[in-house]
């Protein structure tokens, strides 16, 4: 090229389906990358939790022990432990290597929708349909939660944890942010039931997806609306929303079997991926690469950027 490019390359988006995995565990309720993005967890409706290497397409381990379908899972920072939650109202802490349940936390009155480790994997934060967020201690043997955050008026559909905050999205249409450092609770009213919340990578914004088929980007400090993203369909199901690895794009699953990506700043629809015929249930974005995991029905799909060359044979 004679002309040098004036700007750095645009951030890539996953546009190319690299791999499709049949998980063989019923409906995949959630798919989650681990902390470094090399592995992923799938939560099946057949009560199992599976650990995969999505890049190679190998199943590494199956974790059995839930009494009902598994709804969410998360991996610890050191990859030594997993936590999962399910419709059996329990939260389970797993040992990755042995596949055994280390602890089970019972106390939720309903199915547990979402689960997260804190930074040091000392606390498991779980949100349940019983409208509480419970913080479980991984260190001690106490059976009851360290603290119950029962401010929500309806089921908690999504929980995220930062180093000093707990963010919860509830069906009562509010996004609550518990700031441990400041000792304050910020409650932002969205109106429509929240299905998924997430922090931006820089920790300044909060993305909330709600059942009015809208994603909203809120300023964390003031609660002001920074952006609205529409075009997908989310009216019934608990669907995930994601932010891309550099916070450049906002993604959401949709009930029409597609995944939509918007430009974060402009709010314009950047991409829509046809993932499947039915609802895309869960999304997980790679922490550092333009790489997306999407779960629909019983399968898991790995999407990479266009320039990505899959190593070896895809078979």
């Amino acid at each position, binding site marked *: 090229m004679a002309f040098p490019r004036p700007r750095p390359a645009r951030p890539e988006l996953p546009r190319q389906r690299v791999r499709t995995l049949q998980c063989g565990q019923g409906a995949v309720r959630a798919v989650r990358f681990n902390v470094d993005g090399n592995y992923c967890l799938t939560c099946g409706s057949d009560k199992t939790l599976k650990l995969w290497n999505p890049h190679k397409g190998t199943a590494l381990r199956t974790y059995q022990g839930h009494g009902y*379908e598994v709804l969410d899972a998360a991996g610890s920072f050191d990859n030594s432990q997993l936590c999962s939650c399910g419709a059996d109202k329990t939260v389970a802490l797993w040992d990755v290597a042995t596949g055994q349940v280390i602890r089970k936390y019972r106390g939720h009155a309903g199915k547990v929708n979402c689960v997260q480790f804190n930074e040091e994997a*000392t*606390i498991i934060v779980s949100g349940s349909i*019983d409208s509480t967020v419970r913080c479980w201690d991984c260190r001690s043997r106490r059976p009851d939660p360290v603290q119950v955050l029962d401010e929500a008026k309806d089921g908690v559909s999504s929980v995220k944890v930062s180093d000093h905050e707990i963010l919860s999205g509830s069906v009562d249409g509010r996004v609550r942010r518990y700031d441990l450092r400041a000792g304050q609770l910020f409650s932002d*009213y969205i109106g429509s039931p929240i299905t998924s919340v997430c922090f931006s990578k820089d920790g300044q914004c909060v993305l909330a997806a709600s059942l009015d088929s809208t994603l909203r980007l809120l300023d964390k400090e*003031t609660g002001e609306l920074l952006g609205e993203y529409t075009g997908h369909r989310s009216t019934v199901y608990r*669907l995930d929303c994601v932010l891309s690895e550099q916070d450049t794009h906002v993604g959401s699953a949709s009930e*029409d079997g597609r995944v939509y990506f918007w430009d974060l700043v402009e709010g314009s629809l950047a991409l829509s991926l046809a993932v499947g015929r039915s609802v895309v249930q869960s999304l997980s974005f790679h922490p550092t690469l333009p790489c997306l995991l999407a779960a629909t029905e019983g399968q898991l799909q790995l999407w990479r950027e266009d320039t990505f060359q899959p190593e070896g044979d*895809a078979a």
Partner: protein
Amino acid sequence: MAAAESSDSDEEDLVSYGTALQPLQEGERLKKPVPLQEQTVKDAKGRYQRFHGAFTGGFSAGYFNTVGTKEGWTPSAFVSSRQKRADRTVLGPEDFMDEEDLSEFGIAPKDITTTDDFASKAKDRIKEKARQIAGVVAAIPGTTAFDDLIGPSKITVGVELLRKMGWKEGQGVGPRVKRKPRRQKPDPAVKVYGCALPPGLSEGSEDEEDEYQPENVTFAPKDVMPVDLTPKENVHGLGYKGLDPSQALFGVSGREHLNLFAAGSEDTSNLLGDLKHSKGRKLGITGQAFGVGALEEEDDDIYATETLSKYDTVLKDEEPGDGLYGWTAPKQYKSRKRSEREVKYIGKILDGFSLASKSSTPSKVYPPPDLPRNYRPVHYFRPVIAAGNENCRLQKALEESTGKLESDATQQSRHALNASQRRERLGEAALKGPALSVLEYLSEKDRERLKEVKQASEQQMKAKMLPPQSQNSRFQPAPPADASHKWQMLLGGQLANVGSSDFKPFARNPEKQKRYESFVKSLKQGEKDTLEHCLDPSMTEWERGREQEEFFRAAMFYKSSNSTLSSRFTRAKYEDDVDKVEVPRDQENDTDDKETAVKMKMFGKLTRDKFEWHPEKLLCKRFNVPDPYPDSTIVGLPKVKRDKYSVFNFLTMPEPTTSVTQATNEKIQQNNSLNKPKKPSRWDVSDKEKEKKDSISEFISLARSKADVQQQPPVPATEESRTGPSETLPTEVPNEDKDQEEESRPSMDLFKAIFVSSSDEKSSSSEEESDEEQQPTTSVIDSETTKQVDLPDSSSSNLQESVATTTDPGVPLLPTSKQELDATEEFGPKLPPAFSSGSTCQQEPVVPVSFPGPSRKEKHRKNREKHKTKREHKHKKEKKKKHKKQKNKGKHRNKKSEKDSSSDTEDSSDSLSDRDTTGLSPKELLRRLKQLQY
């Protein structure tokens, strides 16, 4: 690609660690492992390696237990002596050793080691001499003398270094000195009697000195022989030594008289020093004991004939130089050598050293710090005694008397702290455990009762005690001072811990309680007179006396009960405060404003609520975050106590003013907000609906309806119409609602009115008439409820459902239980169906009456039988049961058979048409149809 990757789940459960073995080549055989007995070690020549040589206990000697070779012992070859004389081979031990023994790690390594050969090129004279001696002593004298010519001597590195620096053997170390000539040299011919001079010092040097010494000639300092301090271990006589070879050989003795007291160490010096004398002399044995050998030329002094000329005849100045004399030294000599005498304790000053002219500077001494002017050299110990301890004074006295005082609490290590101190430091709240008094656990009512009992007993006591008192004055009680004294005697020191403020017997009368507390305090302090101060001066004397006694008794009572009972009780976790309930202080207030703000997209201040929130301390610790409220004991949102029965506790109203009118207002508002179809989303609506059913609003309405059932018939009616799914909800509602439910439970009739119809509807077909009666009015509801009844939809997959329904669906009670499950599943956004292709998802949308909305999205559809009309409701149900049976058979099948799926699609299309009757617009229908076929 996908198909190739897909595999069964069970095979992929394996975890692989490490690297895999190389796959075997075609036709390659597995190597057999070598058995243990065949695992041998061979050396480079193919021989079996022995791990020890023959000389070190080797277990196999030589070559297959022969010696070294295949042939075993071989005689040394015969060599004819005619042509060639067989040179006599001297066999050393090495000849019988194996190679291994001679190798590096054998017993006689031949490889490079630091041997004499490489130690130094210079000869070690001592060794040389020893060799010479050995040669002399050997059987054939003189043989080893040749070795000296060839063999190098071993000299240490230090000696060699010294040599490089110019040192020569026999010299001392140090700069060269000028030596003064002797004042008097003893005549060699003159025999010296008495103590012999130390030979190394006087004699040795004597030999080298010449008469003539030029001024500019310097000499090396004399060598200093170390004092040998080896103890005498033999049984020889003192000073005996064997034949000294040097003297014997070199005839030194001829000129000197034998030194009886020469120390052992002198031997070496003689050996070193006298060698030169023997030069040119023939080696041989000479001495007193041996007589004169045949080879000896001179036989002059064979028997050591003592001549008088060898002895001194006159006492002369014997001072030979710088030798030491000891304490017997002549006075004159002593005084002259004053400076030297000072260091006699050291011995002679080393050559090259001199005494310092000035003494070295003494080490600096730092003065102690100045004490402050007001310093008193007494340490004050602060006694550490737990407050409230009964015998604290005793303990204190004890400690003071023994002088064993504990150190200050602040300086104690953390191990020395007790739990409460640690707690204080960590800023944690005190445990509310058995330390409290029993009365604390009692409710107000019980306390009162206790008090009554106590008072009654007091009266009795008083009645008993009165007669003796009345002897003095009938209507006057005993003087308070007396009484107090008496009581004090009675109670003694037991009251030490009375006033821990737990016990409030007169809580109802705060003034009295205050008086009681001060009374107890003063009692504890042992004051007598102050008791009267505590009492109310406005009271009559009789009242005062009575009250005082009362106080005493209360204190007494508290004492006994506290000690005996308190350990058996624990504090209730929740206070049984019957008419108060804790309610969050701040509430997320009314959503109406926010709703409008959201609509206007004015997020920010309008939509944000900010509360003070107290995280649990442990949570802060785990998050590595400092506790924002280190002093607070609150966890979560700050709460306030409110009237339990107040509806406002559960409503999002800022401050309730207790009035019924507002309650009604609230109610109306609630209804308004519920009925307003504000939120366009389908789920949201159903949520609202549920909320209305399950939680607060339900209870409100129930309470209302209980109050005036007749007034508001529509409310129960709607309730009734939709109680199907919500039947079991009370078990699922949050705790506070549960409480309230128990508290304000409406009459059974009401419950019956609500619940009976729906449950009966499920269980018996006779209820279907009622169903059908309802249908004209609430047709949608009916269809929905029946759907729910029959098909245990959940948000989950077909699989789950079939698992859940293991029993016959014909059992009447089962649907209810299943429905419970469904009801609980109705919260929140749903989970997508497992497999939409099979269309076996049974997501059950609950269509509320009031919102037959377009918001309903029908992704999850029931598989229904193809009966569109409500008339065939019953029939439909039966068929559905059948269908479910089929599904039960086919459970755990992921894919339905072709037939099933076709029927399912049929069903769903039917259901679509069914829905058509529910008043959906054709447009909507078309859209759904498209979705379905997508």
